[in-house]
């Protein structure tokens, strides 16, 4: 089933389509939300609100971007709304919430690296953080990021450049082989 068929089924409120939507995009969107919000509970809330909003507004989806890009755009808005409305839990509870996950959690090893990366992301402004997450952790292209954030491509280029300049100093000590100077 391709995305076009999935969209048609969602428009008909076909219950099977909801499971397909979750299977296809749930994990990736959850990872993005987790990177943005830093804890499982908020990431689950953001994912749920995103998918509910997407199913409610599926009639307005015109296919100008991919379904993944459209969903990510909604997710980023939901994450920003959650971040504003809640005192987002900081890094210490992240470990606890990940460990207490229902059958989930992270793989063994490398957790410290992720913690360091997350900690360095937290030091960025929200605008810089979201663009680094979308590019470095989720692998979106510049054009996709421009669509997701609703900004010109040139803004993506300059914003990502500046975000990386800030990250360089903070991340370099975690880089392989001791990092570049």
């Amino acid at each position: 089933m391709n995305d076009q068929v999935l969209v048609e089924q969602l428009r008909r409120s076909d219950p099977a389509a909801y499971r397909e939507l979750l299977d296809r995009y749930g994990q990736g969107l959850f990872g993005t939300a987790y990177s943005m919000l830093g804890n499982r509970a908020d990431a689950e809330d953001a994912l749920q609100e995103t998918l509910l909003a997407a199913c409610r507004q599926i009639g307005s989806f015109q296919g100008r971007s991919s379904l993944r890009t459209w969903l990510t755009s909604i997710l980023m808005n939901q994450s920003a709304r959650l971040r504003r409305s809640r005192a987002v839990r900081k890094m210490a509870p992240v470990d606890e919430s990940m460990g207490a996950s229902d059958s989930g959690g992270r793989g063994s090893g490398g957790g410290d690296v992720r913690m360091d990366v997350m900690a360095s992301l937290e030091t960025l402004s929200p605008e810089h953080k979201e663009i680094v997450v979308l590019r470095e952790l989720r692998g979106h292209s510049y054009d996709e990021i421009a669509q997701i954030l609703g900004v010109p491509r040139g803004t993506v280029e300059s914003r990502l450049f500046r975000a990386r300049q800030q990250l360089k100093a903070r991340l370099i000590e975690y880089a392989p082989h001791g990092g570049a100077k």
Partner: protein
Amino acid sequence: MRLGDPECDQLIRVHLYHDGELAPDEARQVEAHVRGCPACTAELAKLREISAVFAGAAAGNEPILGDAAMSRIEAKLVAGGRIYPVLRLARVITAMAACVLLAASLLLWQQQAKANTASSSAQSQGVRVVAIKDIDASPASTHPTEIQLAQWIVRNLEAEQP
């Protein structure tokens, strides 16, 4: 584009090259430039290390959305799916009601405008509606001097007639 780095104005193109965002021709130009530019060489090396850190952080460490969470969200979506058709129907009915209300308002407004036009037209042509009252039948409603004046006019008119 130069973004504040004093060493080379090609740095942002190095970022685009690193991210695979350049056309093949442009990518070859940047490769040639990087080979002869220490600042861009160092920048590219740093970019690769930053991306390696993120790739290392992501690999095998992706927080997993568990089955229980998936089921919870699916249940919410299915419940929402039962409501969406009703909501869509309600939206259609609301839109239709709004159209009817708008049409009725326009009709009333047009009729009012026509009535106003007819009234002002009549006034502009000098038509007056005069209520002729029987002076004798309701003397109290008319001022005495007006009665006297009217009687005087009638008497004079009668006197002038042959």
